[in-house]
């Protein structure tokens, strides 16, 4: 299959998902149970990200690198992503400015100012970003062991440390540094 030159045409490919169904088991079923328990308890749950395809991470990472001056010829290939990073002139010579311009356009399309990582719990399907909240004075929720837990103190959102324990009972672990992020191991 012919390779497609790098450029903004790649940006809409391999879109991110907000569906829990795109996660991998056992995290998928654990996350579903946790969300069901939250919803039943009266909390609101808004999911912003689940699976981030590794192909998208590859495209974001390497377009960012080339945009920053990395030699496009040295970019490793990725199975399933038929992209040609090296642009050439009419004589077939490597055209670095054109390669960089195409990468710049991808970076602009992705709207990235920080170096994207190649792999993460999101690319594995083992992470979910969600905003959780409740407005009632207490949140009474059934944890993963079937025990009723009443959260009476702390923030009424996903940063509540008591809620983190409830999440852990479903093996949905909070990453403290990133408010919306939960994963299979807290990374």
């Amino acid at each position, binding site marked *: 299959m012919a390779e497609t030159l790098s450029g903004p045409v790649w940006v809409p490919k391999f879109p991110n998902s907000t569906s829990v169904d795109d996660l991998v088991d056992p995290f998928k079923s654990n996350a579903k149970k946790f969300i069901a328990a939250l919803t039943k308890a009266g909390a609101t749950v808004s999911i*912003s990200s689940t699976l981030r395809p590794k192909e998208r*991470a590859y495209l974001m990472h390497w377009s960012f690198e080339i945009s920053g001056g990395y030699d496009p010829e040295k970019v490793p290939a990725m199975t399933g992503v038929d992209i040609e990073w090296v642009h050439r002139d009419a004589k077939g010579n490597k055209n670095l400015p054109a390669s960089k311009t195409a990468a710049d356009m991808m970076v602009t399309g992705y709207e990235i100012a920080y170096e*994207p990582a190649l792999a993460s719990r999101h690319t594995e399907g083992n992470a979910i970003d969600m*905003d959780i909240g409740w407005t009632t004075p207490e949140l009474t929720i059934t944890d993963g062991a079937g025990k009723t837990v009443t959260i009476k103190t702390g923030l009424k959102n996903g940063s509540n440390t008591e809620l983190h324990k409830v999440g852990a009972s479903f093996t949905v672990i909070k*990453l403290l*540094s990133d408010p919306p992020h939960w994963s299979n191991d807290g990374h």
Partner: protein
Amino acid sequence: MKALGPSLLVLLLVACQNTTVPPTFNYKSDLGVAVEKAGHACLYIPDSSLSPGQRVQFITATTPQSAGEAEILIKADETCKDSVQDQPGVIHYSLKTTQGALRRAAPAFAIANFSRALTPTEGGMAADLDGDGKPESFRACTSSEGVHLTVWKGKPLEGLRKWHYYYYLGFDVTSDCAEADTKPDTE
């Protein structure tokens, strides 16, 4: 001693009314985040009283830090509505940059209701926000998928953290934050 006559009393009252008292800087409402995305400059700040034409200063969060100015264009502009940046009480405004430049897709510190100077130092920009004679410094770092912007009394990570904002990126990056950057303000 002779009693004050009515005319002197009126003069004193007028003088008191005309005395300009510098507004007290409010860390909770006078600091926010400015970002340029999809060709629009936007401000996210927990202050609903800003009006079109009002000046806002900003400090870019990427190294080297630089300062600039922007002007409020429209309050609650649809172009700046971004569900993933929604935080309780935070209002979005559209901006026009009038001095300096925001880096695309990189959040910057936004400072409203502040007219004193922002000073470049060896470690980045500094400003005496609360007017106590001790300058505040500005720090930004990345966690797994967001940027933590913090303001410190004195040196970053050494002084007292006065302000914290989490800016969700929506893709994975390499974390370089310390625990002091990311810890929630209160529980």
